[in-house]
């Protein structure tokens, strides 16, 4: 197997192997927000001992006194009270109110989500409907409107806010539970006779833990902001110290004392920001897989240089030797490039970052030659690296893939990792036919528009010329009402029709090589045969070279001149089709053939 190999100098102690809490603490934002929030919690708990003055005690001589000039360290408000003491006491009510929001929304959201996700059906339909309705309510406005009913009771208002945000938890939990419900271990637990309630708590609660913790941080942050806003609007209790209330008072007084708004504004901002950043850091720490890792340029370069040294002494570094499984050199494929090769791939190596600190090679030194007019079948089971090889040749690997090494020469010119040269040959000289026809056309454009646009992007011809050429070609690939089809949108045609359109699009610029990635897999059997005939005919007419990526040996025997068998990122056999079916040289090929015979 392709063992995930650690990369970089810190491989052994990479973040992937760490406990989530350590990952959280290593994140500077996570650590900073944890420190801030812990401090706030301590201040809230210890308010009676920390606050230098009674928050409601008024000393008229210190009204609006500037910060750092008197006993009132942060100054006095317009009623002669100590700003610092009020800030400290307000931390209490803020923490209490935010926890109320969290508790209410958690209880309602999680319980409803567990029940709806577990039972599904009518229960879920009803709770979904209620949840959607609650989410459509204008939350802040509703809280303001309910002031007459709720009175100046901020805890009650925040409890109502908790109800209003509970659908966030509901949706989260329902989604996770519905997924888990279908997994085997729940069934197994059912069989073993555990009661429904115990199943819910033991298995499902564990699965929803991480997303709920992450979301809680965001909810707490929002709650602090909303509470301050309501109090700022005058909907809180006027007696109790609150950050929003302090802002309100200071703002009314802003022409007398500009600095008054600064302290409560900074406090609220810092606390809300700390919760949001903590939520973000928690997401990275608890759910590292949610972030697809992309190597930086430097990491990729280091990886390449490591790969070069691996090649220099393969036996010492790579336990599963690169060269032993490769086909015999004397069948003419592995040696020098044949003179009439249009494409020549040498020692191509591609890998992906896997997890946080490891790296997985998916293509491990592939050699492949394609001559003019030749159809080469690239076969292997899924995950053998055949599609990755095709994408690497086209320069269309996903962003996080890394080409570790090798060479791809098209018509004698190196194109691997050469952006400009790839751009020059893609479309015009190398065509591509994708696997899944329905998702490979732009759904917002008519067929005709996107075909004409694609052709004119690589061939300097007039619109009318392009249209004529494409209509002819659509007739040629078996679409009789080509005019009509060009006016349709992709969702208005069948899969077989879409695949013909894609073939026409690939062939239209008259390329030398076509790379077809399982072009028949998504089609039904009769259409499959027609598409294969079409590819063969186009080869005969135009002298096209074709790489046929497939896992279907029937397709290979029907169409291909030569077969290259891939397994675990390597080509294990490469021989003419006739010889291959006569008696394959490699054990794996025999297994493949045997399996195919049993199926057929």
């Amino acid at each position, binding site marked *: 197997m392709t063992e995930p190999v650690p990369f970089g100098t810190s491989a052994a102690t990479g973040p992937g192997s760490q406990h989530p809490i350590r990952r959280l603490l290593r994140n500077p934002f996570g650590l900073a927000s944890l420190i801030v929030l812990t401090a706030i919690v301590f201040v809230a708990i210890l308010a009676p001992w920390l606050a230098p003055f009674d928050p409601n005690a008024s000393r008229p001589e210190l009204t609006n006194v500037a910060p750092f000039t008197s006993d009132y360290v942060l100054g006095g408000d317009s009623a002669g009270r100590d700003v610092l003491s009020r800030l400290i006491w307000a931390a209490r009510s803020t923490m209490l109110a935010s926890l109320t929001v969290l508790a209410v929304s958690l209880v309602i959201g999680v319980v409803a989500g567990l029940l709806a996700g577990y039972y599904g059906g009518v229960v879920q339909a009803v709770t979904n409907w209620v949840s959607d*309705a*609650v989410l*459509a*309510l*204008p*939350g*802040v*406005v*509703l809280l*303001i*409107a*309910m*002031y*007459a*009913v709720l009175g100046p009771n901020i805890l009650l208002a925040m409890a109502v806010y908790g109800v209003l945000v509970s659908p966030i938890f509901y949706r989260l939990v329902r989604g996770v539970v519905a997924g888990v419900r279908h997994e085997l271990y729940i069934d197994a637990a059912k069989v073993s006779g555990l009661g429904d309630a115990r199943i819910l708590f033991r298995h499902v609660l564990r699965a929803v833990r991480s997303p709920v913790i992450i979301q809680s941080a965001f909810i707490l*942050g929002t709650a602090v*902001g909303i509470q*301050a*806003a309501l109090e*700022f*609007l*005058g*909907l809180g209790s006027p007696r109790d110290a609150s950050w929003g209330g302090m*802002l309100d008072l200071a*703002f009314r007084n*802003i*022409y007398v004392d*500009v600095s008054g*708004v600064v302290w409560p*504004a900074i406090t*609220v*901002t810092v606390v809300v*920001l700390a919760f*949001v*950043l903590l939520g*973000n850091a928690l997401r990275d720490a608890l759910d590292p897989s949610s972030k697809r890792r*992309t190597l930086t340029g430097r990491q990729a370069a280091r990886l390449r240089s490591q790969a070069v040294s691996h090649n220099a002494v393969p036996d010492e570094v790579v336990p599963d030797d690169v060269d032993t499984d490769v086909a015999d050199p004397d069948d003419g494929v592995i040696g020098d490039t044949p003179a009439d090769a249009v494409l020549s791939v040498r020692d191509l190596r591609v890998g992906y970052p896997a997890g946080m600190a490891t790296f997985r090679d998916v293509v491990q030194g592939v050699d492949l030659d394609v001559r003019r007019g030749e159809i080469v079948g690239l076969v292997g089971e899924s995950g053998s690296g055949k599609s990755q090889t095709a994408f690497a040749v086209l320069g*269309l690997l996903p962003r996080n893939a890394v080409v570790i090494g090798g060479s791809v020469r098209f018509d004698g010119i190196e194109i691997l990792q050469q952006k400009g040269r790839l*751009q020059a*040959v*893609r*479309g015009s000289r*190398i*065509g*591509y036919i*994708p696997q899944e026809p329905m*998702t*490979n*056309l*732009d*759904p*917002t*454009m008519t067929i005709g528009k996107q075909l004409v*646009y*694609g052709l004119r*992007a*690589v061939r300097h011809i007039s619109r009318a010329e392009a249209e004529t050429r494409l209509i002819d070609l659509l007739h040629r690939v078996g679409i009789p009402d080509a005019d009509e089809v060009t006016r349709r*949108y992709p969702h208005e045609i069948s899969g077989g029709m879409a695949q013909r359109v894609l073939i026409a699009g*690939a062939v239209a*610029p008259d390329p030398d090589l076509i790379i077809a990635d399982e072009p028949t897999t998504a089609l039904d059997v009769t259409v499959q045969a027609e598409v294969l005939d079409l590819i063969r005919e186009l080869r005969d007419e135009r002298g096209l070279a074709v790489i046929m990526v497939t896992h279907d040996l029937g397709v290979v025997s029907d169409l291909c001149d030569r077969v290259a068998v891939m397994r675990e990122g390597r080509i294990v056999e490469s021989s003419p089709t006739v010889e291959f079916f006569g008696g394959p040289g490699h054990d794996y090929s025999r297994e493949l053939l045997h399996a195919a015979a049993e199926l057929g």
Partner: protein
Amino acid sequence: MIRFALRRAAFSVLLALGVSFATFVLVFSNGTAIARAILGVDATDEQVQALAHEHGLDRPVLVQFGEWLGGVLQGDLGVSYYTGEAVTDVVTSRVPVTLALLGIAMFFTAVLSALLGIASAVAGGWADRLLQMVALVGTAVPNFIVAIMLVMWLAVSARIFPATGFVPLEQDPGRWALSLALPVAAVVIASVGPASQQFRGAVKDVLERDFVRTLRARGIKPRAIVFRHVFRNAAGPGVIILGLQIIVLMGGVVVIERVFALPGIGELTVNTSLLGDIPVVMGCVLFIIVVVVVVNLAADVVNAAINPKVRQR
């Protein structure tokens, strides 16, 4: 297309009705409390009961809702408990301010968040991470604090803009714009963060779809793929995102109007709630619900016009 629009419109009316009902029930759930809020803590229970009876607040909530809805259908939202003015008149007089604030803020939110979101998704790398961080901070800081800071720096300290107050458009367009500049800025600064992240997500989703890879394989230049194909496909989700953003904007507008003393719906809602003038409050809530529903209906219809596939559903 017309059938799609009608179907969505019918759904929107139902939604508006449902949300109005839920709000009404919550607000009117305790008639005595409303009467108590109006009369203050010193009033006797008898006085409170009498007032509740006078305003019909002692009847079942469903009956009150039926009566209110019947009035709404005839364009009658009742009268203010305090001034005796028709609620429709009170609310209508406030609408231009709020719609101006909302419309301009919506426009800038759309343009800025689309630009930032697209740039973030297409650029990737450190630029993407930087924009994500900025958006996160923008999301975290409450909008009224942004507003207060703007007033502090640009109105009170620097005296560039008027701190509070509103000048009607017909009176003086220049000063009208100046009086709206800071409120709009405050709303936009707070809403661009989350909206741009959603745009980023929408564009990233499109960039990862199969047909984009096939277009690249066709030799079409990356820039052309982004402008001609990715934008078209991300436009639909983008419009829907903006439609949903109106709910967030609405909450922001209510608070921002209060900061800048703009005589709009939000300011009216807060003032009348504090007084217990519930008919006016309910009129304001209805206006807000209608705006939210209409904007989302428009978003759905535009989305269907862009994306032919949506119409069939």
